[in-house]
């Protein structure tokens, strides 16, 4: 009997070991999130949510991340399409450049942005002259989020466009569609799943940004910064409920959009 069980296990050694290792990393992700969520009582969470400062910071975070994503769509999708359809000398360099914001420390990214969009540089001054300032202001939060999260959208959109058979576009042209009509009636609809998925990732990444925003714009306060300042100034007990609310919102948004995208894909 024992020998039989042993043989049964021996045959599945690889599967069992991989499953054990996988369980470790799953628990590593799941336990801290769950612990945070269940450490505060629902009434405390509700009370925290009603605080003006908390609700303002959460709202600010959500809509600045959304603005950054909208900007990313406007500027990033055309680039993604161009990269998917053309090959040229230096293309690999351009593609690597797009991914740089993912790998540089985000505080350093914040400083780089401060340097260019601050009023000591021509770009910052140009924007100042039309009334847009990036330091300690909402536009500052948006560009910090845009900088660190747009690679997710561009990469995903590019992959989406690459999957669209170029000959579909060619056929559309022979049927009398212009370049623009072909893009909006054929390429874009067929890549929209990837673009939507990339937008969700970009938005989520924007919501969770801390370092770059802190350098450029510690006030008005976005939620991740609020968590940090509460931890620093008042301690864990005050930071915890805000952190819990932030996690819940991100989970709800992420799961909701994911299943929406999934349903659309199946339809």
């Amino acid at each position, binding site marked *: 009997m024992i020998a039989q069980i042993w043989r049964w296990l021996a045959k599945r050694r690889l599967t069992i070991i991989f499953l054990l290792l996988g369980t470790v990393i799953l628990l590593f992700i799941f336990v801290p999130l769950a612990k945070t969520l269940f450490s505060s009582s629902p009434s405390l969470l509700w009370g925290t949510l009603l605080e003006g400062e908390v609700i303002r910071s959460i709202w600010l975070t959500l809509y600045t991340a959304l603005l950054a994503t909208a900007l990313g769509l406007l500027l990033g999708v055309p680039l993604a399409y161009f990269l998917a359809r053309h090959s040229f000398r230096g293309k690999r360099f351009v593609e690597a450049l797009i991914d740089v914001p993912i790998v540089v420390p985000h505080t350093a990214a914040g400083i780089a942005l401060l340097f260019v969009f601050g009023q000591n540089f021509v770009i910052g001054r140009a924007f100042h002259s039309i009334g847009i300032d990036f330091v300690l202001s909402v536009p500052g939060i948006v560009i910090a989020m845009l900088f660190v999260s747009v690679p997710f959208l561009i990469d995903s959109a590019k992959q989406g466009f690459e999957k669209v058979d170029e000959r579909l576009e*060619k*056929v559309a*042209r*022979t*049927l*009398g*569609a212009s370049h623009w009509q072909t893009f909006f*009636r054929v390429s874009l609809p067929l890549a929209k799943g990837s673009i939507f998925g990339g937008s969700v990732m970009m938005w989520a990444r924007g919501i969770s940004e801390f370092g770059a925003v802190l350098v450029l714009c510690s006030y008005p306060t976005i939620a991740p910064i609020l968590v940090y300042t509460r931890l620093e100034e008042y301690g864990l007990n005050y930071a915890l409920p805000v952190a819990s609310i932030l996690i819940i919102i991100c989970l709800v948004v992420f799961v909701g959009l994911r299943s929406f995208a999934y349903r659309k894909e199946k339809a």
Partner: protein
Amino acid sequence: MIEIKNLMVNLGSFLLQDINLIVEKGEYFIILGPTGAGKTILLESIAGLYPIRSGEIWLDGREVTGLEPEKRGIGFVYQDYVLFPHLSVKDNLIFGLKQKGRPKRELQRVTEWLADLLEVSHLLERRPDTLSGGEKQKVALARALSVGPNVLLLDEPLSALDPQTRESVQQELRRVHQRLQLTIIHVTHDFEEAIALGDRIAVLNEGRIVQVGTPEEIFRQPNSEFVARFSMTRNIFAGDVRQEAGGSILFAVDNAEFEVVTDLRGKLHASVRPEDILVSNDPLISSARNSMKGTITSIADHGSTIHLTVSTPMDFVCMVTRHSFDEMNLTKGGEIYITFKASSVHVF
């Protein structure tokens, strides 16, 4: 009419060059070439979908070389259909007209006309990925016709289909061509397809047009190895298919005839593979319907096999093994009998 003058296209690893062709209005023109000869790129260049290096393309007396593809009035059908996967069959059909902003009434009228022409009415609400290969190709053809093109370019339109479907779509192409008096350029690597459909054939090999002529000219006097190798390994005849009073179906060539199995009638072609022909010293009593006496006019040694040309007086190339050849004492000028089944004749 479509006229191609000194066209040169860079294909990366080699060039398409010195391409000069005139395709008459209403002509069914075939470009025949081996896989990798640049046939697809040649078609895309004509449609303006692939940048050319030099040369001119004229359509009905108007130069279209620099024109955008959407302004050329050239329809295109790819080998693997390339239907818009996010649109229903109906929306695929009216895609072009919609982009041109035509009124709803016209969209409806054209959809009905096309669905009728190609017998796809029952598929209109379906998605492309639910269609069979033959259905997809009919829809692709209908879609290309929807905008009333002057010229239709077909890129290996039958190659992705199974043999039975291929036959029926081939009939469809012939019918549509005759009914709409279309100018068609059809590229293929399939010799029999070329002979069956083409008014004229251009042979493309290693980036150049090596021969242009009627199907008969091409397979009687091939000047490229690609075609020669093919016509040598087939016995191809041009003739008439008709049904006898007794029910047997005969293929008549000049003054001789043999029995075949087919549903087709009229002026057609037939081929018999050399390995499907039995050679015997005495008349053979068997179920095979075709048996005739002939004279060996030439013997070609291919190593382990020998190709005999037997004149009955129709010339048949027959293949025998070296072993049989030695045992049967076959000599040039000798008289023998050849036998083949009616069902081993391919009529196209």
